[in-house]
């Protein structure tokens, strides 16, 4: 090793490479890298692309089941939904760009996740978004909410894919680092799924879509570092989306995939042409030669470095069968999109990139793409918290007042202001609209439906990462069950702070452990996902937020259920246990202003028994409405059902040794509230007893008020006013 390479040059540091990584680069090449090569190593080994901090932990996720066609490692996960069809889905973060420029950041997040799905041959059929904003009163929150929502709508509405669900919650830990996670779901024919695996020596490598500009250079590196006020000047690294081009690209790709021209295809997402070419070649174990003079550009004098690292949107890289370029080119010409042969597949195992007759990069593919550094970062567990039962509450609010306060709090309030800005009905298959437990989209031309949900309770994960990780999975599972779907699989997006800090790394490790346990126990494997680290500003991390995107299948939409009961006089059955668990509850935070206590335990075996039983009742056709119990417990769940249905209800508050606050607002897991006809109620209770599930009659539907035991009735109008009022008030002026 010569003297020059033992010192880490400034350029390497600017590229975010550590000293050890720099030496590794020099070792692989046997020389110091050229500038383009340094850029390539930098993005490919960035946290965002290489998962170097999380990889060894992600490996513990269960990823297989008889219905899983493709697990993690491809552009998106694929599960069988019968009749020769598959569902293709993934969730991904666009946190940092959305904080810098909320409209474009969120919009391009939607565009990117759509490409991950249609690059596999699936027509996108639904979008969801898990959004976490700072405290409502924080001076930037309104601006960020407005921009993110407009960006998601601006992109999804134009591209014509319905945005059907998701979450939006608020907490001060996100003041300086919001989370914008987008999930896309598509449907494909099982034998027409396309993969990003290059093959066939001599086959052309083809660039299609929009032209390449200077936008987004080093976006992946930005997403792999902490934020600071100074970095907000990094505006040029945020990409600009063009949903119109994306729509054309979807249609063109669908047409291309119907021909026999295509060998492999991958979208140019983070790290653009670099990651797409390296990953396709690495999966196929082959080499690539590229000539950057052929890349369609929209600006003059772009350098090789800029072309390789640009994150311009709406672009795809394909490997075609030799001799079929003309047929493929005709498709893209029809849709007015760029089409250019930029390279060939080789058998060298190397990426050789030329421009203006000069070799600008010549690197072995495997060490860059496959053998990126993997770290076992030190991690320490979160300090344990004590259980917190309702008896320990020192002050209690009148139940009716507490309920109204919860329904109007930022996390539980109606999100209509948001989802009315999304076209949630385009494609005319949205049969379960926003506002329920899970959204449902019909599989076009069939009687079956896909149930979709995103879930996570960050305050639980913060309190106990392992339990919180479990809870995110079981809540997604319950939300799918309550609409009558058989849960199939999940995608996830793990949002955490700086993994170089052991406490944060401990959160990540714990959450993954809990999620993996829950997925195993529920046969609910992980088929795709994304990790977003360094979500902190000036040293303050966000609440750990491992968002789960769940997908389930409703075989017969005639048996779909929702949260709205359709008649008075129905029996209300509570499935699951009541012990008055208040630790880390929303009641504690919103009513008493306390963020303490251990989160509710998760009993995976009981969760599974209860879920299977409820799904059985729904499939038997006797459940008229179903809702899972989560934030705010039983009282909130029933109030939400009443508001959705237009019927009131009467809830018993038992006079046993449980405090009424614990009964009404405790957040025990594994629970459902069901509405059944009187005639079916006893049978359901008997069944529950037979399969070892706790269930009890807790009330009756009817009237136009909600009555909590002996408390004064609350009119549905009052419930609605509190529930619907918060967000419009916040966004239209004073909070």
């Amino acid at each position, binding site marked *: 090793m010569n003297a020059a390479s033992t010192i880490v040059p400034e350029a390497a540091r600017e590229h975010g490479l550590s000293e050890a990584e720099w030496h590794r680069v020099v070792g692989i090449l046997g020389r110091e890298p050229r500038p383009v090569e340094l850029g390539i190593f930098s993005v490919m080994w960035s946290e965002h692309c290489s998962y170097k901090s999380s990889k060894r932990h992600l490996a513990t996720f269960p990823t297989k089941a008889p219905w899983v066609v493709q697990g993690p490692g491809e552009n998106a996960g694929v599960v069988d939904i019968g009749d020769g069809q598959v569902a293709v889905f993934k969730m991904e973060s666009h946190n940092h760009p959305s904080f810098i420029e909320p409209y474009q950041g969120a919009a391009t997040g939607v565009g990117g996740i759509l490409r991950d799905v249609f690059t596999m041959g699936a027509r996108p059929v639904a979008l969801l978004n898990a959004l976490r904003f700072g405290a409502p009163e924080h001076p930037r929150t309104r601006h960020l909410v407005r921009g993110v929502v*407009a960006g998601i*709508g*601006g992109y999804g*509405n*134009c*591209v*014509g894919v319905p945005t059907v669900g998701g979450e939006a919650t608020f907490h001060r830990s996100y003041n300086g680092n919001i989370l914008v996670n987008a999930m896309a779901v598509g449907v494909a024919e099982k034998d027409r799924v396309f993969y990003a695996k290059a093959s066939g020596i001599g086959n052309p490598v083809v660039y299609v879509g929009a032209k390449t500009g200077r936008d987004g250079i080093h976006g992946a590196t930005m997403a792999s570092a902490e934020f600071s006020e100074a970095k907000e000047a990094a505006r040029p690294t945020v990409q600009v989306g*063009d*949903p*119109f*081009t994306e*729509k*054309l690209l979807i249609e063109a790709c669908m047409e291309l995939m119907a021909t026999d021209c295509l060998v492999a295809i991958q979208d140019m997402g983070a790290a653009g042409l670099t990651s797409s070419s390296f990953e396709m070649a690495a999966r196929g174990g082959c080499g690539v030669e590229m000539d950057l003079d052929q890349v369609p550009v929209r600006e003059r004098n772009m350098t090789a470095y800029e072309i390789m690292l640009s994150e311009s949107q709406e672009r795809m890289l394909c490997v075609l069968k030799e001799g079929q370029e003309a047929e493929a080119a005709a498709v893209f010409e029809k*849709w*007015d999109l760029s089409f250019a042969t930029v390279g060939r597949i080789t058998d060298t195992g190397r990426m050789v990139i030329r421009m203006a007759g000069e070799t600008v990069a010549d690197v072995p593919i495997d060490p860059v793409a496959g053998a990126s550094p993997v770290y076992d970062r030190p991690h320490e567990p979160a300090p344990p918290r004590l259980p917190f039962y309702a008896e320990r509450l020192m002050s209690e609010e009148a139940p009716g007042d507490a309920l109204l306060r919860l329904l109007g709090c930022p996390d539980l309030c109606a999100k209509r202001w948001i*989802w*009315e*800005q*999304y*076209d*949630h*009905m*385009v*494609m*005319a298959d*949205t*049969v379960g*609209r926003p506002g329920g437990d899970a959204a449902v989209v*019909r599989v076009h031309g069939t009687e079956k439906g896909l149930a979709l949900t995103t879930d996570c309770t960050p305050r639980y994960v913060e309190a106990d990462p392992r339990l919180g990780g479990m809870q995110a999975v079981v809540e997604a599972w319950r939300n799918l069950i309550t609409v009558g779907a058989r849960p199939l699989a999940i995608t996830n997006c793990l949002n955490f702070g700086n993994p170089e800090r052991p406490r944060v790394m401990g959160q990540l490790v714990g959450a993954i452990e809990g999620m993996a346990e829950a997925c195993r126990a529920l046969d609910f494997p992980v088929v795709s996902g994304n990790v977003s680290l360094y979500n902190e500003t000036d040293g303050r991390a966000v609440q750990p937020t491992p968002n789960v995107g769940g997908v389930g299948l409703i075989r017969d*939409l005639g048996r779909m259920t929702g949260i709205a009961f359709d008649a008075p006089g129905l029996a209300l059955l509570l499935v699951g246990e009541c012990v008055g668990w208040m630790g880390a509850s929303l009641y504690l935070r919103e009513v008493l202003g306390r963020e303490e206590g251990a989160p509710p335990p998760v009993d995976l075996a009981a969760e599974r028994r209860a879920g299977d039983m409820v799904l059985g009742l729904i499939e038997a056709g006797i459940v008229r409405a179903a809702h899972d119990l989560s934030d705010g417990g039983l009282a909130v769940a029933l109030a939400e059902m009443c508001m959705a249905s237009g019927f009131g209800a009467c809830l018993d508050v038992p006079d046993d040794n449980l405090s009424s606050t614990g009964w009404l607002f405790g957040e025990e897991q594994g629970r459902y509230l069901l509405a059944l006809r009187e005639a079916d109620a006893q049978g359901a209770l008997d069944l529950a007893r037979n399969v070892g599930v706790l269930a009890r009659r807790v009330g009756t539907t009817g009237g136009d008020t909600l009555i909590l035991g002996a408390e004064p009735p609350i009119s549905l109008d009052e419930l609605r006013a509190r529930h619907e009022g918060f967000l419009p008030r916040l966004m239209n002026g004073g909070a």
Partner: protein
Amino acid sequence: MRACVVTFPGSNCDRDLAVAFERVLGVRVDRVWHKRTRLDRYDLIGIPGGFSYGDHLRPGAIAARSPVMQEVVRQANDGALVLGPCNGFQILTEAGLLPGALIRNRGLAFVCRRVDLVVEGTDSPYTRGLERGRTLRLPIAHHDGGYVVDDEGLRRLEGEGRIALRYKDNPNGSTADIAGVLGGPRNNVLGLMPHPERAIEPLLGGVDGRALLAPLLAA
């Protein structure tokens, strides 16, 4: 009945409209690419919703100048049924088949919700047989749905019974609550911001879209 739906670059309700024609009218629907310069004679032409040309310039402005539109205008003037929901309405006004224009919603935000509409002009192939004053509930989903027309244009529309639908609770600032306008020699052209094609079965939350489509079988 011969029916077609035109696809422009950026149309995204073309399939939905074709499916609705097929399901409600029981017809086979041809899908027509916007670059076609000659069309067979159609009884019903659908100009779909979506974001043709990404709403660049003005919504519908570029699509209105697509080659196929000359043929659509000719057939419309010849009495063919031309139905344009949402972006279709915008294209039909830009093409001069209907008066007025669609501008940004009063609230500036995109709005997707179900709205109540009142049937007014019943002398058309779409609304014949519907009771004047009847309420229809249909979804809207648009960013530029504010209908504007000058005073004289409004007087003419009202005088000629060519206001097909008005909003009960105006969601976008449209002049005189106008949601749908009739045109053509026999009121055979209907442009409207709501989406009847999204309300043709109970599972989708309503069937009132059928009320505007089903009468076409007798047209």
